């Protein structure tokens, strides 16, 4: 399956500060009552962005200075909680193409990877430095370079972390694994035949 090779992601950024930003924050459960992912973007971070009466809270995503940002900056354990792919789908549909954080929850990380959205880690002080540059000039163009393993902008750069398997999948254009999984059909049958509980008569 020919997919785009994701080697660099460039765009402007926005900081959503905090630790342990969970998937219920990213997309509250009541917005998951859907049978497609269409339209999820507008509910991204809904309850952090709006008071219960609908008044905007002044969240960074609604600050016109950061409109059009495609790189999200955050803290520790970003995306913890539920396995809902609705969370990365909402980020993607809102316009985000990459996330830089101190660390990521595992299921969220994997869900992003299969959508072609790189999640890269960086040190708190580096993220703070980039966030300060973005705050000073929201038009700051950031480039995440997966091959060079760095994030850079006109005023600086820092090293980024990423598991090799995710880097390889993105940069080689194989971030959606379905093609490669399907190719292994004979091996799957072979392996399944060794496991009695998989026999159609087992139940």
């Amino acid at each position, binding site marked *: 399956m020919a997919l785009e090779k994701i080697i660099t992601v460039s765009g402007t950024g926005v900081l959503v500060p905090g630790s342990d930003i969970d998937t219920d924050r990213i997309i509250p459960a009541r917005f998951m009552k859907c049978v497609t992912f269409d339209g999820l973007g507008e509910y991204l971070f809904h309850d952090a962005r709006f008071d219960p009466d609908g008044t905007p809270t002044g969240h960074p995503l609604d600050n016109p200075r950061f409109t059009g940002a495609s790189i999200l900056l955050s803290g520790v354990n970003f995306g913890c909680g539920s*396995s809902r792919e609705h969370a990365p789908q909402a980020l993607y549909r809102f316009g985000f193409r990459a996330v830089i954080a101190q660390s990521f929850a595992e299921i969220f990380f994997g869900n992003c990877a299969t959508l072609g959205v790189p999640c890269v880690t960086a040190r708190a002080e580096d993220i703070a430095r980039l966030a300060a540059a973005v705050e000073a000039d929201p038009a700051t163009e950031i480039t995440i370079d997966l091959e060079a393993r760095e994030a850079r902008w006109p005023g600086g750069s820092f090293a980024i972390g990423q598991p090799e398997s995710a880097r390889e999948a993105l940069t080689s254009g194989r971030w959606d694994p379905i093609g490669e999984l399907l190719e292994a059909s004979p091996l799957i049958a072979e392996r399944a035949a060794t496991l009695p509980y998989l026999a159609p008569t087992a139940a």
Partner: protein
Amino acid sequence: MGQSLFEKVWNAHAVKTLSNGQTQLLIGTHLIHEVTSPQAFGMLRDLGLKVKFPHRTFATVDHIVPTDRQEEPFEDPLADAMIRELRANCAEFGITYFDLGSGHQGIVHVVGPEQGITQPGTTIACGDSHTATHGAFGAIAFGIGTTQIRDVLATQTMAMSKPKVRRINVDGELGPGVYAKDVILHIIKLLGAKGGIGYAYEYGGTVFDNFSMEERMTVCNMSIEGGARCGYVNPDDKTYAYLNGRPYSPKGDAWDAAVAGWKAMASDADSVYDDVVNIEASDIAPSVTWGTSPDHGIFIGESIPDPAQAASEEQRVAIEDALAYMKLGAGQPIKGTPIDVAFIGSCTNGRLSDFRETAKYLKGHKVAAGVKAIAVPGSQIVAHLCEQEGLDQVFRDAGFEWRAAGCSMCLAMNPDKLIGDQLCASSSNRNFKGRQGSPVGRTILMSPVMVAAAAVRGEVSDAREVFGI
């Protein structure tokens, strides 16, 4: 050098190494539900693919089902569309579906074990992060996203990086009124909400040896709250006794062969782990959360943390933020915090033994005035067994509403929601902001018996004092 159960199960299900270095892992059992599967079926259709092993795919409906009025169509048209979509997908692809009318419907992590679908030495995937529940049987069970559900539907495999294994020993005796929920809240507090990232947790020690299967499920269920995608307990005679005779358990000669195979899958005595943590059972007291992350736990006799005493700037900010949301005072005792709602249920604590143990103490007590209390069995079978024993009447007599099976107020995708900034004493698994349906609703996690104590007193209480445990 011996191998852990994780290692053995992984090797037995590894199909090949993918070009990015991940493993293509065979998923023996795929559990699906209405929230995370419809888009996966859509992707499958877009690619012109079929379900590879429909006989190894099992569905139920849990997240969106109303627990009061279940006649269809549901009042909520979106929920109604979701159940119809699941029903149609299962019919089209030949998937076994435990529907509302089947008598076997329930929360997917309650249904799998009670049907005997969940078995030792197997791999299980489900589009739900609490899939680690099935690890209680010595299965390697992962929560997955929707694109991965597509992968498992289409190929019965998925791409995965092999985690490390951390053995967590809890040895000694738990005190009276200390439950499995307290054990996992304590583990999460010690190791942190992200402590388990990159690990599978193997739980063991005398406390787990003595635990019932349902208690083991409670602990494994919340592995993800500690960051671990997978958590398990080695199978033993209790595991086999639980499974024997269940609808999908092997029968006759196949049973004997299966048990022999399961025993061989258990971790070897000389297994080597990437990390080992030892916890003393007598150090654990009834626990509650005070904040908005499951690792914000304290014992019932302790005070709410003071941000001024935080170990780091990051922690100070996190504590302040959580306390502002929870509207709780730094340094104050958590005991005595008034509650508005009491919820007993969920895939963590919605099984027969949870209701049985709670009813034992609740009998003769009344829910405090002004507290809304609901009890929601984890499955139709749990509901039936509770009703056979008259447990439902104990809850009703105390002033609880006795509801039909579903996820209910754990994540409030159905009509069971907090209103405004109501504070809920909850036997569920997540105290995230807005988790229970109101964007400003507040959750305090605890064991079911502690929820009952809070309901009776109208405030967060020590169940040992309330019920003389």
